[in-house]
């Protein structure tokens, strides 16, 4: 069993990647981005933007070595002016993305934003960072950019003199930390109406997310955003990680109901039963086919593996680049109860030896599929569209589809449009 502690050189398999900071920042409606850094740093984001169809919202200010030495705060304003000249419609928000070296230079971002706001009234400026150099700090970039999405509302409110206590709450619940909204089939929709950042086309409508009565944090990505929104908008939050264990799901619904002040937990028995039926059918279909779970599919790969083992699936390996705290108990459970299950780090330097091939397997996640060369690949990424009993049904559907219609992995990776 491989040690999953971080360290050593990192291997970047072609299947590695994420939505990317630029793509996440552009979730803010009516925003554009100005990327400020050495040209090299913007290449993956720009090519990803072209492929995914949003390059017309990202602009680049390349820094030379002399700019880096002399500081670049004072050249950003002219770049913004030039960007605005090219746009048919002025954006409501400009998200400025800075790179790793900015953390070493000490740019005064508050002063920069103030100067820009004075020069370009009516536009909200947000300083954000694509800085993997801070991955192991309290502000990892993927969490920080999620926070910054909602900070644009706080800045807008500040500009308009709206105080947190002035915000009138509504009946909605925000979903944080998920790249995509939950499907309508998810029973969570029946507890409360849900809001997700992608549900808005105008910035002014988007500010309504500050009026929600509760934030549900589905993945670790939403953690900083939730804390920030609690401070800025007085919205309480609850962490309810995506789980595939019916008991954990039941506990999550109890916690959500309590947080919403409901007297009783809604009856989701039919949903639970539907999930059980889906599990039974899928289990019968795939039989003892070896299954590999990886952290590109879910933020809690050990949790998913534990659930699948409980359902009777033949999970033989869990792949993870790191173990997040909320997944540690699951890992320990597997270690104690299923010592035959292998743990594997797909980003370790040993990974390049490719000595863990297992073609006759079904991988849940593209990282595992690449490392094992699995014949069957369940199309699942970053817990997208997963929650509750509906999430179990969805997972079973994806396993079934993978088994019945094997996908080409290279094409699948390309479709995801990931960047590192």
């Amino acid at each position, binding site marked *: 069993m491989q040690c999953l502690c971080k360290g050593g050189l990192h291997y970047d398999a072609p299947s590695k990647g994420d939505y990317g900071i630029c793509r996440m920042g552009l979730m803010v409606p009516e925003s554009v981005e100005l990327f400020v850094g050495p040209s090299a740093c913007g290449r993956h984001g*720009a090519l990803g933007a072209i492929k995914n169809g949003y390059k017309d919202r990202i602009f680049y200010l390349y820094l030379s070595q002399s700019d880096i030495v002399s500081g670049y705060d004072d050249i950003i304003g002219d770049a913004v002016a030039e960007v605005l000249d090219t746009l048919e419609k002025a954006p409501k928000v400009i998200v400025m993305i800075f790179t790793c070296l900015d953390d070493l230079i000490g740019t005064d971002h508050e002063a920069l934003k103030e100067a820009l706001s004075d020069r370009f009234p009516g536009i909200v400026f947000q300083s954000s960072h694509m800085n993997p*150099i801070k991955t192991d700090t309290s502000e990892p970039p993927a969490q920080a950019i999620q926070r910054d999405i909602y900070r644009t509302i706080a800045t807008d409110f500040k500009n308009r003199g709206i105080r947190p206590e002035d915000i009138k709450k509504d009946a909605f619940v925000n979903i944080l930390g998920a790249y995509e909204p939950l499907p309508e089939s998810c029973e969570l929709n029946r507890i409360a109406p849900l809001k997700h950042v992608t549900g808005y086309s105008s910035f002014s409508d988007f500010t309504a997310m500050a009026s929600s009565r509760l934030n549900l944090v589905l993945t670790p990505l939403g953690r900083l955003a939730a804390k920030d929104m609690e401070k800025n908008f007085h919205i309480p939050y609850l962490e309810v990680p995506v789980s595939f264990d019916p008991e954990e799901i039941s506990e999550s619904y109890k916690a959500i109901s309590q947080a919403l002040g409901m007297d009783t937990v809604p009856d989701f028995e039919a949903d639970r039963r539907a999930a059980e039926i889906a599990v039974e059918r899928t289990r019968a279909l795939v039989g003892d086919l070896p299954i590999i779970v990886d952290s590109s599919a879910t933020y809690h790969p050990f949790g998913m593996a534990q659930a699948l083992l409980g359902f009777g699936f033949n999970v033989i390996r869990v792949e993870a680049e790191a173990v997040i705290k909320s997944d540690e108990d699951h890992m320990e459970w597997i270690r104690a109860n299923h010592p035959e299950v292998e743990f594997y780090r797909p980003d370790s330097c040993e990974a390049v030896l490719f000595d863990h091939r297992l073609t006759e397997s079904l991988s849940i996640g593209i990282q595992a599929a690449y490392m094992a060369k699995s014949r069957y690949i369940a199309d699942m990424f970053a817990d997208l569209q997963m929650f509750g009993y509906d999430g179990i049904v969805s997972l079973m559907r994806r396993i079934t589809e993978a088994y019945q219609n094997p996908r080409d992995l290279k094409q699948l990776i390309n479709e995801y449009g990931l960047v*590192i």
Partner: protein
Amino acid sequence: MAQLCLYLPPFSPDYSGAGAMLFDLNALTVMHDAGGCTGNYTGHDEPRWYDSKATVFCSGLRMIDAIMGNDQKLKDNVCAAIKTLNPEFVALVGSPVPMVIGMDLKGLAHEIESETGIPAIGIETTGTDYYDAGAFKAAKALLDKFCPPETTITPPSATDADTYELSGTLHYNILGATPLDYERTEDLDHLQDVLNRSGFSLIARPGYGYDLRQLRNMGQANVNIAVSHAGFLTAKYMEKKYGIPYLCGVPLGEKNLDLYAERLKEVALSRESEMFFSESFPDTPASTIKAYSGKCTGSHKETCSCRKTGSCGKTDSCGDKMNALIIGDQIISESLKHYFRDHLEVTVGCIFTPDRDIPSSSVLNLKNEKEIKKALCDERYSVIIADPLFEKLLPKNHKKLFLPLPQYAVSGDIYHKDAKPFLGKYFDDLLRNSPHTSYKSYKP
């Protein structure tokens, strides 16, 4: 000075060029960065990455290590990886943060070599230069480390002809061949086949199918071929260091292949370096380039070259050549310019590292997107040859003739499916089959 880029992506950076040069070798290549730089290279600049077993890694540079100057972590991680992977050597490749904190990668490589006994090189790329500069830095570091002149028996010039008479073989290297300029390996294979049939024997083509043994023998070549700007920089360095002459430029069209081989032989035997694109070629068959050339017929009179000089003065067809702009690697562009010389009045647009040592009658140093756009939209140019992404800088209803030549260093894998080999015989096919302008409605 900073530059604003509104439409185009950044072009391949220097560390990607270095990575491409190292890719084939059994090296422990470590990009010293936080993650994104390695991701740039492996994910967007290296078409060979998928399914490869190349040992390229990210150092995982973190804030605290950068601030505290903690080089020990990198050294420890490299030493641990050496034990696991048993590489022939170690290459440390730089990125923006090591540049900002003034890290001495060459010194660190020296320390690693001293402690492990495994050869190590440091390549001080910064992420602020282009891939051609990085590919050359890597090639130079490799040659200095593994092919020092004192271990190379340079053929004395007086005996080259005799040697050739006896063996019938001249040895050569192909320099500057990486997927960032030549995505399709057929290009280099084709060139190699043609030259091998003409009595040449390849020693190495660093960057695209070579190993350390071949690298060690590179100094024994009679002649070098530079097929890109990175290759030209390497060829000049090898001429100075090993006394090996070079032929710079590439053959385009079947008809030029024999001439290319002849010129290479002359260079090898005379030991006088030459630019292939400055040679006199026989006229290229008009039928193959008909679509991209032509004398001014009246309808194009606004864009014919006489307008530039004012020498024509005719109101109807003047018969002068039309103006064209070629954007891309400067050596490949100059070769294209020469190919079309009887049909088009070509200006080369240099978008990567400018080089005054490349003799050219008409070069625009296009330093930023604004200058690229201005050149593309210049009404004098009625023909454009460039990566399809550049067409996005033209007005949607433009009337220019656009020959798309996808280049990985510009558009990565976006036009991967459309990338065709273009050297030698393939160029005839490319012109014959080109859809002219078919990339406007690109959908992934």
